[in-house]
């Protein structure tokens, strides 16, 4: 079934159209994004049960973008009734004119040629099998409790076991002179985490689940609990990594983190505009092994970062960023594309209606190859199988990479030895790492359980992934 439209947006649309027309009479460009976003988070552990509306991401509000004499301004707000229209228009005028703001000497304001974008009328909704609201809190908590009880019963060595589930439904309306677009999207994520303790040190291991859809995700959770519990226990005996460069096999989640952190951020084209990304100088050149083909796009996969149009009213794309090792293009928001003279790729995203739009990744992944995982491991004299990535940080200007990985399983003479090293910092120069890719497995897996920040803020939902991948990687 389809995700339902937002009643709030339907009710506000006549007023928003009135506001749009009023702004268009005054400004050379005016657009409005209306957002109605709600979600619920559930968590069950040995010592805590919680169920709440997701108050961090849940929000309702509006952001208006206007241009006056080629200068852009935005206003975010969440109070809108017939009686508020005058105040809203006044507030927008105030920020657009900025008559009280004096820039330091030597600074000026950018003036742009206004590009309104193509005429588009669109309405779309994603699909779901089980509506989490209809299923209800009790049934969801009951399923999570069942998983938690099963997990805790596996071993008395674990400190705690947590089962989590979150869903988010958002509806967006984008209005400008040329556009009238509506979309309704629902995604769900879940996870288990196991904690084990030795002295002052806590080791944890988790596994996540995600999909574009609803509570049907709960049916996918709860498998292989024994193996996840065993990993947490094994981590208590883990050793410190001896720093060095090793031949590694990355699991799909680790491949995904490399795709996202190593190259994804580096091709966000708002960074090209600021001369902050080295990738801008390498379009058309080999930046990776010929085995590497990389995609990004809200319609490149069905995952948690799938949508029909971005927060600037550009339809979603499937962008091939690297084609058989050659860098083809970056991804962009509307404004960056216009400045650079390229086509916008539907990657203009906001953390919420309260924040600015930036070029952001969506579903980002490497295509699969033809190699088997067994052959990859069998070909390594000494190295590691990397699993369970936890965090990463980008460096588009200098193509440095930093990822934290929780599990490095030792490979010796083509076999896993059972020894685990943890945690590991994965670093290096991005093209060196990507050019060292020597094998890819056929099956691609994407995970959309995480959020992505730009620098230290602006969190948006993304998914990433790929196949098992063999490469040379510096570990510490």
């Amino acid at each position, binding site marked *: 079934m389809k995700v339902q439209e937002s009643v709030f947006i339907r009710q506000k649309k006549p007023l928003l159209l009135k506001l749009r027309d009023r702004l268009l009479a005054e400004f050379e460009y005016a657009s409005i994004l209306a957002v109605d976003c709600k979600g619920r988070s559930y968590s069950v552990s040995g*010592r*805590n*049960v*919680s*169920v*709440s*509306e997701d*108050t961090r991401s849940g*929000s*309702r*509000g509006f952001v208006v973008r206007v241009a006056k004499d080629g200068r*852009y*301004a*935005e*206003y*975010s*707000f*969440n*109070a809108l*009734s017939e009686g508020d229209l005058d105040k809203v228009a006044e*507030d927008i005028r105030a920020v657009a004119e*900025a008559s*009280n*703001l*004096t*820039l*330091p000497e030597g*600074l*000026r*304001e*950018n003036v742009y040629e206004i590009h309104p974008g193509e005429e588009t009328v669109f309405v779309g909704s994603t699909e779901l099998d089980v509506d989490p609201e209809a299923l209800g809190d009790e049934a969801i*908590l009951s399923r999570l409790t069942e998983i938690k009880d099963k997990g805790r019963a596996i071993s008395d060595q674990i*400190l*705690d076991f947590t089962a989590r589930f979150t869903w988010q439904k958002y509806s967006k309306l984008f209005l400008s002179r040329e556009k009238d677009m509506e979309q309704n999207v629902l995604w769900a994520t879940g996870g288990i985490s196991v904690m084990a*303790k030795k002295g*002052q*040190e*806590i080791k*944890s291991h988790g596994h996540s689940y995600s999909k574009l859809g609803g509570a049907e995700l709960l049916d996918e959770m709860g498998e292989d609990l024994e193996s996840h519990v065993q990993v947490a226990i094994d981590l208590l005996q883990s050793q410190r*990594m001896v*720093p060095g460069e090793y031949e590694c096999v990355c699991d799909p989640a680790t491949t995904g983190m490399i795709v996202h952190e190593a190259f994804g951020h580096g091709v966000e084209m708002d960074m090209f*505009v*600021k001369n*902050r990304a080295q990738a801008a100088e390498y379009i058309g050149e080999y930046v990776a092994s010929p085995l590497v083909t990389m995609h990004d796009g809200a319609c490149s996969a069905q995952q948690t970062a799938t949508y029909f149009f971005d927060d600037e009213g550009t339809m979603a794309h499937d962008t091939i960023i690297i084609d058989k090792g050659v860098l083809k293009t970056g991804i962009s928001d509307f404004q960056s594309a216009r400045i650079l003279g390229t086509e916008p790729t539907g990657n203009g995203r906001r953390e919420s209606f309260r924040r*600015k739009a930036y070029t952001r990744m969506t579903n980002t992944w490497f295509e699969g190859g033809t190699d088997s995982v067994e052959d990859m491991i069998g070909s390594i004299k000494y190295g590691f199988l990397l699993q369970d990535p936890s*965090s990463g*940080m*980008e*460096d588009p*200007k200098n193509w*440095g990479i*930093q990822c*934290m990985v929780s599990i490095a399983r030792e490979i010796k003479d083509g076999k896993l030895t059972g020894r685990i090293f943890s945690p590991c*910092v994965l*670093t290096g120069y991005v093209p060196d790492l990507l050019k060292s890719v020597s094998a890819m497995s056929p099956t691609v897996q994407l995970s959309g359980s995480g959020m992505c920040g730009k*620098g230290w*803020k602006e969190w948006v939902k993304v998914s990433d992934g790929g196949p098992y991948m063999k490469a040379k990687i*510096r*570990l*510490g």
Partner: protein
Amino acid sequence: MLNKIKSALTQLGIELYQIEQVKNESLECFFVRKNLDLKRSTSTEDYTVTVYCAFEKDGRKLLGSSQTNVYVGMEDAEITEALKKAAYAASLAGNPYYELYEGKQAEFVPSTAKVANQPLEKSMEAMVGAIYAEDTREDVFINSVEVFIARGTRHIVSSAGVDVSFGTCSVTGEYIVQCPAPQDVETMHPFSYADADAEALRAEVKESIEMTRARAQATTAAPTGEYPVIISGGNVATLMRYYLMRSDASLVYQKISSFQPGDNVQGEDIQGDKLTLVLKAKDPYSNEGIPMEDRTLIENGQLKMLQGATRFARYLGIEPTGSYRSVEVPVGSTPLETLKSGKYLHVITFSSFDMNPFTGYFGGEIRLAFLCDGETVTPVTGGSISGSLLEAQKHMTFSAEKYESADYTGPFAVKIEGVSVAGA
């Protein structure tokens, strides 16, 4: 809106609740080089309602809670529906019973910050001016800037008598410094102040510009090995968060942390400086309306108290203090120049410096460090450091110089012996 919510709670017979009203306004400017690219303003009003439900199950007294958003402009029926849903959810989320924090009505506490008392544009001009005042060179310059000036009010009302409100302010943002030669590099600098502290920001920018020039000279990573490592600036604050988190009642109750008052949290046989850490009350009240005050958390390496919100404090039988996010650490007695004696690796910036409070592991990729072999100092880049604070905390030496940010005041630098470096 507040009255509408209270009225709906009464009609539904919900006896235990907390309402938080947050009003905010902000001015935001985004610059590319010396050009203002976009200006934004925001004006929002948000309500979060926590509904509690006390009940018995299998002979155990339980208290469940659930939060919901109530949006400005919601009709009465919609508010009632949201609260009813939250009450039902609370009845399913039973945790061991505890008494809510009992507070009282108090006068509004205004913010004394300049940001609260002058037009937002004035604060913006001061901070933007501070950044660009140091942007005077051709060879190293400000690439881009984002500045967010925000102010507002928080009002917390509960069924247990709390009715407090206070003013809030924040000045946050980031600037990127670029140095195109001999190699084209950049460094990113987020900043966060409680007020429009233009002088502090200008000093930071000046240092960042010098640092970026040094990074442009750095071409190789430090050789792999173990080093005495100096960590400085905001990274010291990140390291100190380990103690803040481990002393949180929620982690202690869940047995994730075994911290107890009286413990020597740095272990025995401390060869470096003993740590003293004071919790700083940056807001007059906590999220639950608990009056916040400065408290000594650790004195000479010994834990003096646990801190935390009502629920887990009640479970542990301690006084709820509210959750703290800001700390002050007294500076050490060793000047930075003395810390830099002999062989060392002074990491100036990481791509991201991570501290895992569960494991005690810290690490990050090096964007710029200075390597001293005992005589010569060389700028290096790349590679990473990793270590365990559980081991490192026994031999930390704090600098005599001070560093201040929104949530940390304390030594500018700390030297840690025997840190593993994955380098060239």
